[in-house]
């Protein structure tokens, strides 16, 4: 029994036919060829599949795709613009916050959601926000340092992150340049 759903992923609208049993993770990876989001356990315990759904980090292996019909999904592929990487990506590269790279997409998405509602997080707040993203390579230290650095850069307004966003009223958006000068996004806020 196939159902047609509409997903706005990284500001682009997709219409997909899905079986009710398929997860958002499967649809992203297999139907939309967005393989940046990874499968680590398929049980909601590791965070490798983290995407933002209406701005909130969720484990996409726990979301049936049909449940996300009409939603706005952000994945790692949507972080960079054509001109530049996202501030978080720059910071991860600078700090060596990725090693094997498998947990990295989910980690970036959780970090992005954190900074959207908590622009100046303490180390403890960063660690709590990332506690659902398991990493086996880095020991988390450089990831935390990178998130702190990105927060500083965004708050100082010195770097403008070019990232596609969805409009709060739900219409798919053009790519816009957003100055993350300490503002939380309007509409649904992510939970820190």
């Amino acid at each position, binding site marked *: 029994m196939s159902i047609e759903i509409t997903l706005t992923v990284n500001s682009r609208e997709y219409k997909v036919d899905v079986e009710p049993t398929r997860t958002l993770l499967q649809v992203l990876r297999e139907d939309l060829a967005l*393989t940046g989001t990874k499968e680590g*356990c398929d049980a909601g315990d590791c965070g490798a599949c983290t995407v933002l759904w209406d701005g909130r980090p969720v484990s996409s292996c726990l979301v049936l795709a049909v449940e996300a019909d009409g939603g706005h999904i952000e994945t790692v*592929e949507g972080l960079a613009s054509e001109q530049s*990487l996202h501030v978080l990506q720059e910071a991860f590269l600078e700090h060596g916050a990725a*090693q094997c790279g498998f947990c990295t997409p989910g980690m970036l998405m959780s970090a992005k959601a954190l900074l959207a509602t908590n622009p100046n997080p303490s180390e403890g707040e960063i660690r709590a926000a990332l506690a659902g993203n398991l990493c*086996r390579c880095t*020991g988390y230290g*450089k990831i935390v*340092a990178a998130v702190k650095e990105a927060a500083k850069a965004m708050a100082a307004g010195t770097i403008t992150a070019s990232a596609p966003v969805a409009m709060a009223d739900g219409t798919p958006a053009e790519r816009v340049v957003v100055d993350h000068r300490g503002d939380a996004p309007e509409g649904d806020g992510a939970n820190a």
Partner: protein
Amino acid sequence: MPSTMERFGPEWVRQDLIDKIQGKALFTWDVKLPGMLYGRILRAAVPHALIKRIDVSKAAKAKGVEAVVTASDLPDPVLGVGVLALHKVRYAGDAVAAVAARTAEQAAAALSLIEVEYEPLPAVFDPEEAMAPGAPLVGDPPAAATQPEGETAGLSPNVAVFAGIEDGDIERAFAQADVVVEETYRTQMVHQAYIEPRIAVAQWQPGRGYEIWTSTQSVHAVRADVAIVLKEPETRVIVHGPYPGGAFGGKTGSELEPIACLLARKSGRPVRLANTREEEFLVGNPRHPSITHIRSALKKDGTILGRHVRMIMDTGAYPGGSAIGVAALLSTGPYRIGAVKVEGYSVLTNKSSCGSFRGPGGPQADFAVESHMDSCARALGMDPVEFRLKNAWVDGDRSPTGQLMQSVSVKECLGAAAQAIGWPSGRNAAAAGSASTRRRGVGVAVGWWFTGTGASTVTVKLNDDGTVVVQTTGMELGSGSVYASLPAIVAKELNLHPSQVVVAHGDTSTGPYDVGSWGSRITYNLGGAARAAAIDLAGMLKDEAAKRLGVSPDELAFGDQSVYVPAAPQKRLSLRELARLMYRYNGPPVGRGSFVYPRPGYDRTHVRGDASGAFNDPAYFAQAVEVEVDMETGQVTVLRAVAAQDVGRAINPQGIEGQIEGGMVQALGQALYEEMVWQDGQLVNPNFADYKLPTAADVPAVESIILEKPSTQGPYGVKGVGEPPTCPTLAAIANAVYQATGVRIYETPLTPERVFMAIHRQKGS
């Protein structure tokens, strides 16, 4: 205590990270071939049983199924023991059959249609029970009921490996002792828990043979295994290695690949065979659980007259991947000891087959000996750091196997770690009296570990357009040993910026041989080969340029992507010009390099069985932690973690820090949270909900201190880096818990329950 050596080279961004950070890097989980089928494996649910009958006929006819295989599909099922079970299964998880179907759901459904009739056999799960004569035999029945001769005489055939070391007169040492300390330590089974489960995609073509994409630490090891099991020449097994999503020793050999190949050949279509996370836990290569009996003969002044160790490792259902040989050499510690006797046993049981996990044998041996060193110090009334400093090796000392120790840095590492933690009291010592429910303490531990060897070859090619390429089949596990160290080394020899050197990763048919990424060997061996290849190329380029510029090669230097005469800089040829000339007339400009790894000497009369005789160019290291123990719950929180490690020469400092931080946190997981729990041969917690990896909220930021004391043989003085950080952590934490609470914990993990119960037993309540 920072290194006084200058930076090896500039920092830049590795090319693999640029793709990984954008979610564009190719992992085997992302590989998709046209017509690809989905495979699943039927695994035994019983721990030990004869296979009386397998009937796959219903599964073969199920919707979507294109192939079903069992051991009878192997060219030689006996060679394939461990791939697909032939007449018996040895543990709950052993592969019995496999299917490939058009969808993953169809494959899963088909498994339930495979009928297997088992005749259960008596099983054994405890290694000490398994050693005793009369224990159920895990392997195929041998000729005799017990081992006939040698070290293992009278023991069960379940004892797969013996490792022994003897040096001096141990009985005399104990006869002369002022103080004897005798203890038993135990460590648990833990899993590498890389975030990317194992997976293989295979296809078969009649002309080309088998072609495999797999998440692995060695494409050549997979090729060799598959070629043997499927009785194919190696040229007809082509293995590609996309970036592995973590490995830590768990992906050193083959597991899924031969089965994927069988399914691909039988179905005529590519097959994707992946482990679920549950299967990953069940069928991995976890760390050997250990039981170590250790006793030391001490003099009042702190001299160690003798040390006797008896260690038993549980190796699970299959004997490969032994860690007891290395553990035996580590088991007495990097100290001057009058007499040493070590007896190590690796024993089969009906559980997961244990194998290499980052520092195999290290955490087990170091937990025992470094906890024991603290106990010895306290028995003598000595400070644990002073006691270690008094006995630690220095250059020129000999190991228990008679190896001459050179470039030793135990004391430097220990001094650095102890100072950083604020020994003996730590920096966060709360002004709490004995009534406080939260108590703090600091602990230290030291260790040493080899730099792995094995053959590595690299080619460095100058392209027609003047760009430089390093060709390798070395696997990048994440440390940067391939994508950072190799460009850094080649750039150094050709005076380029590392970003101007590109790494081209080859498969087994196109790339130069490398034995594999493990054993802390990559930068040393692969880097050594890259250095040799770069020097080879440099020589060719200088020879060519010398002829064309009318000078001798000695007058030439590299700079600005050119070869030029420093004394007369207008005399120059760019790399691009040289390349074009050489490709047309005198080329091609391809440097080749291998690394001839050393084999350090030792006294063979000291070594019996599988014990390691010597460690090649060892690294030394020390860790110190400060913990807070909640006396009411037993919870241990690590407030600070310090790691001081001698890396020989830091080619890639950020990558080294990443290895130290990641390794210590991984070990922290073993120290406090992780355990694979078995009940009656069934793994009770094959998931991340109940197998507890440390989260970002549970661990501190590791403070790493890099020391550089050059190795004897490594390129630029490099020593191995990746495994040492996992080794001393368990003991450092247990020692800190002791200082905080006065309670010695003899078993890992130090879960809140274990610590709480130990505290209360001590209190007598």
